[in-house]
């Protein structure tokens, strides 16, 4: 395979990540966690793909696999047309600078003992982006870009509020002028009034710099605000992927429907919506259910669902769903 059939910025083919758990070094009885199961997706330049799902569904693991922060167990990743799945550190370097990550907890992702100027200069020095003066100028430009003052480069991370720290995290991701940014729950640790500022910043930067985002979040309304398309994950697999507005308005997968119905609406006068309460918990990814992974919690499940796993395929309304009986098509 020589990648890039349709000019996607990023493409995966049956990307799979398994972990072995248990301490039995030589035993064949080790258990395997299926964190990401055969995910195939394509991300186009300039779009934002939202990744949603409950905790433990594999959305963060997938995000990290996509930019090779985690080693992949199986499958392929193409970035800018190049197969980067198994590239060594040296060969990966030039690709890495064009894909960056923004983390959930800005305080934990910034070294507390270094000044903001140093933190932002580090990637520029590592990748030899100019003289000291040029790097200093770039650092100040980055601070301005994310809405901070250039003279803040002398300060330490703890002197900033949570929202400002996240701005620094974003500036650091922008330092090498990437094309793709994977943002893992970038606003969920922030206060409500600050969340909106950072969401706006993401949208502004995308417009100004033509960035492509993979935006991982559990908050559906935030994902809706930033994403062009949304992918819903359950037990390591994508169960539905399509245009954000269409999917959230009329979901095809029963799990997507349940997820949306659980979001509390900030309107006490709203007519009582039918809430689908999912029974029980997400099953363990060590021993996933047979057939469709959602069948034990699905109210529409049949014997067919229990025996055969549905493939992610177009369902007739223009986007892909992994369900034998997608909603709204029958």
């Amino acid at each position, binding site marked *: 395979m020589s990648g890039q059939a349709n000019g996607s910025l990023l493409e995966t083919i049956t990307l799979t990540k398994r972990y072995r758990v248990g301490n039995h070094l030589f035993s064949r009885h080790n258990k395997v966690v299926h964190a990401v199961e055969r995910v195939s997706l394509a991300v186009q330049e300039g779009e934002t793909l939202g990744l949603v799902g*409950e*905790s433990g569904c594999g959305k963060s693991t997938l995000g990290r696999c996509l930019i090779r922060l985690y080693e992949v167990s199986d499958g392929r990743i193409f970035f800018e047309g190049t197969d980067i799945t198994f590239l060594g550190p040296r060969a990966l370097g030039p690709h890495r600078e064009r894909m960056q990550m923004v983390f959930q907890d800005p305080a934990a992702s910034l070294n507390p003992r270094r000044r903001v100027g140093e933190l932002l200069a580090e990637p520029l020095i590592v990748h030899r982006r100019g003289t000291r003066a040029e790097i200093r100028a770039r650092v100040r430009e980055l601070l301005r870009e994310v809405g901070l003052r250039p003279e803040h480069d002398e300060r330490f991370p703890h002197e900033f*509020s949570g*929202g*400002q720290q996240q701005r620094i995290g974003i500036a650091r991701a922008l330092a090498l002028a990437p094309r793709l940014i994977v943002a893992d729950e970038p606003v969920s640790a922030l*206060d*409500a*009034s*600050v*969340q*909106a*500022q950072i*969401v*706006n910043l993401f*949208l502004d930067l995308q417009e100004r710099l033509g960035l492509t985002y993979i935006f991982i979040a*559990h908050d*559906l*309304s*935030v994902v*809706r*605000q930033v994403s062009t398309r949304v992918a819903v994950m359950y037990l390591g697999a994508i169960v539905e992927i399509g245009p954000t*507005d269409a999917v*959230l*308005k009329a979901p095809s997968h029963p799990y997507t429907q*349940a*997820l*949306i119905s*659980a*979001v*509390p*609406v*900030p*309107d*006490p*006068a*709203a*007519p009582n919506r039918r*809430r689908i*309460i*999912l029974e*029980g*918990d*997400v099953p363990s990814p060590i021993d996933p259910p047979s057939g469709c992974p959602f069948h034990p919690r699905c109210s529409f499940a049949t014997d067919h669902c229990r025996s055969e796993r549905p493939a992610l395929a177009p369902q007739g309304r223009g986007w892909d769903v992994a369900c034998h009986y997608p909603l709204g098509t029958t």
Partner: protein
Amino acid sequence: MSGEAKASILEVRDLTVSFRTERGLVRAVDGVSLTLNEREILSVVGESGSGKTLTVLSVMGLVHSPNAIVEGSIRFRGRELIGLPDREMRRIRGGAIAMIFQNPMTALTPVYTIGHQIAEQVRAHRRFSRRAAWAHAVALLASVGIPNPSGAAHRFPHELSGGMRQRGVIAMALSCDPALLLADEPTTALDVTVQAQILDLIRKLRSEFGSSVILITHNMGVVAEIADRVAVMYAGRIVERAETRALFREPRHPYTLGLLGSIPPLEGERPRRLPAIPGVPPSPFAIPAGCPFAPRCRWSQAACAARPPLLAEEGHETACILSPEARAAARSELLAAPVGAT
């Protein structure tokens, strides 16, 4: 509407919590008064540092720092809690007043089973045999919707999922049929699907045990779903308080407006930009002398240099000097469609 005088279960008057620090006295809660009626669910909304958690911790008598000064009056069923000897406070805490904390992992000890921890709590407050306390614990786990409760009682906290653990914590809080439940962000660490289950549980608590609830949250969706009344806190003070429907129909304080405006909608048209509140909440060391929100407020004026009192108009209290006309203009500017006007 709460026309007739309902029996109140909790009366907080001019609660002030301050801390002695190297940089002088810091007021984290500044003159908070609130009344909670029997069977009422009151939501307290605010950002981190707004004083909402300290307010309920004061009710629990859990502000222990030697540098903390708690002043004012907290009456539970007419009985003053501030200054109550530790022995007596312990009898109330976990019994008539119970609390659910945000992080169930830190609220449970990792070295005992869930059943043991609940049974221990029951025996601390009631004359139960070990066997009866254990049976009670299992029944409680069943009542909060834990599948296979007798098996779950034998499990350690780390063996349960986040949602199950939080149910365990709720079961423990319910173990002595509390008249007053204080819940501090009980669903923030949980997925929306589990959050929906927990909110149902809190509603059931009120309908079956007749408990009164103070629910701290920053999620306006949760408020809209569950609360009878809302108090919005900012920088240690209550800046707006109303019945839930009234607050969403006609938010009056610019901070409340900003909070509501900054929520991205889940349906309808998406705004190109969210009307975010500029700036950050003030540090407790530098709370403005007048209206604490003035530095972030688009409508602030010279008069905001004086502290605005919390004034009631038809039961809707606001600490803001803007005229009704100015508020209406602010509303139509910030909220695309008036929330709840359907």
